[in-house]
């Protein structure tokens, strides 16, 4: 079996290529996805090989991208839309929330919108404003959408294909600061045997406290676990992978063993995913908890200027600080 070392970005590119090869109804559309290959080169070379009817450079209008993709989906296509940056998705918000999410429901199952909306998200790349946001809660809050995010190249490769193959409309969040991180990818593994799309996974087993993270924060949580191990504390890190629906089965099992739980995300804490997760863990694991579920998140400010983003973003120290606090409760 061909296992290659790829960056997360290249793994996405390989996954998109495979999806285009496997299903003639798959079309990629977005701003600059054609000749340029996307501003992050995630669609690099795809228009050259599949033509401009399969990889479509669109006018510069996000609502137009999603709205026309709805029509293409009704027509029987499987559109994969790229939103160039997290902060540019809001012009398309109405189409996503009121149209994409509700079409199957309103039609009592007669109309399916098998659409994937790819969004590079999160900070840490020194970008100007609107280029570093974490909008996942807006979409996870919306019934009818599913929301997933990958944290390593293997998942990037298989999850993007699974999302495209799914008939559910899926917001696919790509941790842009991790695009250049490398990892092994099994390119020939059958998709049917891949780890399920809507399932969390233990990224590092441990016994003393549970750290829940997703997307760009999985790497941070794993680094924290490595550091904690040097101090003799074993953290179990769970990569949530699916944000809607949430899969907390592994988290419940873990927290019942460890009694301590820290949730990490870049998005602001107020009404973020961490709030929902903390509530559910508390309901499920109440008698096992040694301390409240703590959250390590971005602050409730607009995303700050890049020169202070390192202080805004959760990092290894803030994760370890929260873990310490669960022990001092």
């Amino acid at each position, binding site marked *: 079996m061909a296992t290659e070392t790829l960056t997360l970005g290249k793994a996405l590119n390989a996954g998109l290529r495979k999806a285009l090869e496997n299903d003639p109804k798959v*079309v990629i559309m977005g701003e600059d996805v054609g000749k340029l290959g996307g501003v992050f080169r995630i669609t690099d070379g795809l228009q050259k090989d599949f033509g401009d*009817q399969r990889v479509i450079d*669109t*006018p510069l*209008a996000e*609502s*137009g991208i*999603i*709205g*026309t*993709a*709805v*029509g*293409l*989906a*009704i*027509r*029987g*296509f499987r*559109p994969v839309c790229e939103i160039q940056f997290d902060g540019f998705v809001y*012009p398309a918000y*109405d*189409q996503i929330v*009121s*149209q994409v999410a509700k*079409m*199957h*429901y*309103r*039609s*009592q*199952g*007669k*109309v*399916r919108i*098998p659409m994937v909306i790819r969004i590079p998200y999160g900070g840490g790349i020194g970008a100007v404003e609107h280029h570093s946001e974490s909008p996942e809660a807006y979409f996870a809050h919306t*019934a*009818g959408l*599913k929301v997933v995010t990958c944290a390593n190249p293997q998942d990037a490769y298989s999850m993007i294909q699974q999302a495209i193959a*799914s*008939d*559910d409309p899926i917001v696919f969040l790509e941790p842009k600061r991790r695009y250049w991180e490398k990892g092994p990818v099994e390119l020939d593994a059958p998709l049917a045997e891949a780890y399920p799309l*809507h399932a969390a996974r233990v990224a590092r087993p441990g016994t003393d406290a549970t750290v829940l993270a997703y997307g760009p924060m999985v790497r941070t949580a794993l680094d924290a676990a490595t550091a904690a191990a040097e101090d003799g504390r074993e953290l179990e890190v769970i990569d949530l992978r699916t944000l809607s*629906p*949430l*899969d907390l089965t592994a988290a419940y099992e873990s927290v019942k063993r460890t009694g301590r739980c820290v949730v990490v995300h870049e998005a602001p804490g107020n009404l973020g995913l961490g709030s929902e997760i903390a509530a559910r863990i508390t309901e499920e694991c109440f008698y096992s908890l040694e301390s409240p579920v703590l959250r390590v998140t971005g602050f409730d400010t607009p995303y700050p200027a890049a020169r202070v983003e390192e202080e805004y973003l959760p990092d290894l120290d803030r994760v370890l600080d929260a873990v310490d606090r669960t022990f001092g409760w």
Partner: protein
Amino acid sequence: MAKGDPGAATRSKRAAPRTKRAAATGEPELVQLLTPEGERIESALGPDGTEYRVDFTDEEYRGLYRDLVLVRKLDAEATALQRQGELGLWASLLGQEAAQVGSGRALRTQDMAFPTYREHGVLYCRGIDPIMPLGLFRGVDQGGWDPNEFKFNMYTIVIGAQTLHATGYAMGVAMDGKTGSDEGEAVIAYFGDGATSQGDVNESFVWASVFNAPLVFFCQNNQYAISEPLERQTRVPLYQRAGGFGFPGVRVDGNDVLASYAVTRHALDNARHGQGPSLIEAYTYRMGAHTTSDDPTRYRIASEVEAWQAKDPIARMKAFLTKQQIVDESFFAEVDEQARAESVHLRERVLAMPNPEPVTMFDHVYPNGSPELDEQRAQFSKYMESFEGSAH
């Protein structure tokens, strides 16, 4: 035309053919083939010199009249049902029957339509049971006909959103290679004058233009967006907006079913032959309220309504049929009786529409389901069951 009547009208007996150039003095430029007085105009020129005409048989004229009367009657029945508390809301098409029947009948079987929430007349022309939208307005469902079966998409409440769907669908038609012949497919997007201010509509103009989508934008300019008059949406005639986007626009008398048909059929055929999008502004008037929740006397004067009453789409068709002796009096009575019977039938069926079981609210959220929802459904069912046998 009465059967067996040798003296009945033939085409040759009708009003002398004449070609009318749009832009009659004092009136907005529009394509018209039937005057408010029921006078037939043989052909009319659009702003780009296109000559519009129709060539209907007597039977087809009668069919159009029947459509107009039926959709008006069914619409009136729905308004009455709302007044009696049987519908939560109704968006009446009163006054816009010709724009809808004309454009709806211009669609070929393979053409796809994307409506707003007021296209009950087009829905009727597409062969959908007129009770279908009443479920939505009664609150027992949210639509529910199969868009692909009838080539008529679900109603869209968010203003203008469907124009992008229509554009994407039309792009798909072209990508499927289904343009370029008489059998080609075309798409029509309905929207109103208010919608022309929406970003989505303007984006759809851009997209349809640059992708040369086989699409007809059909704007029913009924002069009001709830209370706001056209002057609050535009300072140029709406059809002229098309020019800035790079495709043709034409204004048609939306109270003239023949002109509405001719202009729409021409635009659809252009689209299906791969000649790209166009904009039709059907100039009409919403005789009733925006919806049953609205009181139009607060924002428009009676004389304006009366002026439009004189341009009524059904009255002019009736005058034409009578003048040209295409029908006799028994025809009108027969159509009225059919409309009455169908509206009674509609009423009976609306009253018999059951409320959905509460647990069905969990159905169809996702094609592939969701374990979270399954759990909520189970909890909800258990909770509901806990009331069984109690007085509550």
